[in-house]
């Protein structure tokens, strides 16, 4: 018994606390989680990087499709196709003679072009009414 008492007294007091095992477990858990954090961070970063790559790919795909569509529109507006549609589908024929009439009306507006090919100067300006302009200065709630 005396030996036991001596042994007990040899252990530092702080270690005799009954919460020590719990603390040790918690510390171990914290260290374990901390060790896992870089892994989680790397995993998240890799996942985000993958998402970025996927979205970039998606953007490039859409751009490619857009350019393809623009050229399809341009091809549909080609003079050869217009003529063949006019003659084939609409059964129009080339006139034998031209009749000129002088009229007091403005010439028709120019045809619309794919906006990609328009310069800034010729691109139609966005319409903004006086009221829209006025309310543009009012701070929104």
């Amino acid at each position, binding site marked *: 018994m005396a030996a036991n008492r001596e042994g007990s007294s040899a252990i530092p007091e702080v270690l005799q606390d009954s919460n020590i095992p719990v603390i040790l477990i918690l510390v171990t858990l914290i260290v374990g989680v901390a060790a896992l954090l870089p892994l989680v961070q790397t995993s998240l*970063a*890799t996942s985000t*990087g*993958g998402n*970025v*790559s996927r979205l970039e790919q998606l953007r*490039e*795909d859409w*751009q*490619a*499709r857009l*350019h*393809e569509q*623009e*050229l399809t529109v*341009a*091809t549909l*507006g*080609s*003079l*050869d196709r217009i003529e063949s549609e006019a003659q084939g589908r609409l059964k129009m024929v080339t006139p034998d*003679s*031209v*009749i*000129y*009439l*002088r009229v007091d009306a403005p*010439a028709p507006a*120019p*045809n619309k*072009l*794919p906006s990609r*090919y*328009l*310069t*800034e*100067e*010729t691109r139609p300006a966005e319409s903004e009414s006086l009221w829209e302009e006025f309310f543009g200065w009012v701070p929104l709630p």
Partner: protein
Amino acid sequence: MGKRRFTEVWRVWAVMAAIVLATVVVTLRLVQLQIVDHAQYAADARLIHFGQDTLADRRGALLDRNGYPLAASEAAFNVMVEKRAWEDPAEAQAAADSLAEVTDASSAEMLSIVADTEAFEVPVVRGLNYGQGVAVRELGLYGVRLLEGSRRTYPEGNLAAQLLGFVGQENSGLTGLEIDLDSILGGNPGQVTYERDGIGNQLAFGARSETPAQPGANVVLSIDRYIQRVAEQELDRAISDNEAKGGTIIVIQPKTGQVLAMASRPTFDVTNPDLSDNSKQALFRNRAITDTYEPGSVFKVVTMAAALDLGVVSPGTWWFDEGVVHVSDWSIYNWDLSANGSQTVQDILSKSLNTGAVWLANLSGSAGFYDYINRFGFGVTSDSGLSGEVDGRVRTPESDPEGWRPVNMATNSFGQGIAVTPLQMAMAVAAIANDGVLMKPQLVNEIVGPLGTQVVEPEAVRQVISPETARTLLDMMGVVMDGASTAYIDVPGYAFGGKTGTANIATENGGYKPDAYISSFVGIAPLGEPEIAVLVKIDEPAGVPWGTVVAGPAFSRLTQRVLAYLKVPPTKEVFVSELLD
């Protein structure tokens, strides 16, 4: 006991020596790998671990003057295959078959390309469209990836094929405006270097460096797609009607020198040019600027301009036509061998009298005559900016003092013995329509780049003849057309002027090709405020060679359609009431 101890010591030393020796060998090998051959192995490692791509942004479009695309680029994909991924024949065959199924390419050809290459990676299929590219990507083949590029397309088909030209596999211009404007259209290529995984995919967080590509600028040409199409249609019809070998039509806007149309035949398929056959490469050249011809009687307007501007004659000046002119040992006759007696200067143009043209040139004197020829831009390139443009040939007493003879000036006066390009001739006629001011031919109106728009302004070269002389000459050309047969040349509703020409074709040995002619017509319309100057040149028609019959109808139909398209009101009363009645 002593012998046993010696043996044990020897064994220890032997083991130690072996260990030391092995250590030295390993160390030396490491020195070789890490230091001596470091660069080699580092390069090999980079080749495996790092990928490098050239980035090409979209090539700029060639647009007509109203913004309609004549040549534009769309995304296209090249299929890249790593050589090591296709080392196993069975796996390579399977992969090639899968690719062939979605790309319509030959699997044998793909296998051959990979087998023949020494490179780490090689393109096996080029120019796939978007749908095909997606299909290849979805196959998910090992060692196969897509490299995005672009492909040239021509929404208007073969319109202005020789003028536009085409691009090669690397998307750089090979002919025509595509090569002349390559630095503007092509932009600046970029480059990306990246770390990749075992199957060649880019590592999400690997090393990466990128120099972005700059897109090319769009170029707005002076060409009008409608006028160009009309010119090509009328040229094809004239060639077909006359069973000719080829021809050229050029339409110029006189005030600016802008080329509204430039068409030549024979032509080629710009959407799929045949580069394998060398004999077909002649079709790629733009004959309006690369080929010269003797213009014949249309050149009489230049001779007339010189004489009028020098003040040696006026339209009403009288002159006696004996039907023949003797120059040195040569006798020069009229085209119809006629002798017309007393004639006015106007009659020289109206009846296209060779003898009269010689008389006018003699009145002007060789110095004056050739000075005007030079001032009109003959004998030097017109500075159109098109590659391959030639000077033409004008032999003058100054340029060839040994070879020049007075008979040269005599024949030059009616457009023989002088070589010009169709563009030079068209620009000279346009100068007459522009109050005597010769303009530089303009093919580019605007350059629309990422940083803004650069507008190209028309550029005057020089005042060739006075505005009064130009107006007089215009009126005289109008009188010429008043006397022309409306069965061949007529533009109802519009006053117009013009001159026909029928010329012999020079051969390389100095003579003329027998029974072969170039029929041409130069015209200006409307006469009051000229909107267009037109040159029609038809090569070697099979039947009657006269310019009136061969080239005249093409001019008439073209001018009628173009003036209506340009919304030019008729200059004559157009008898609407008569039509309605």
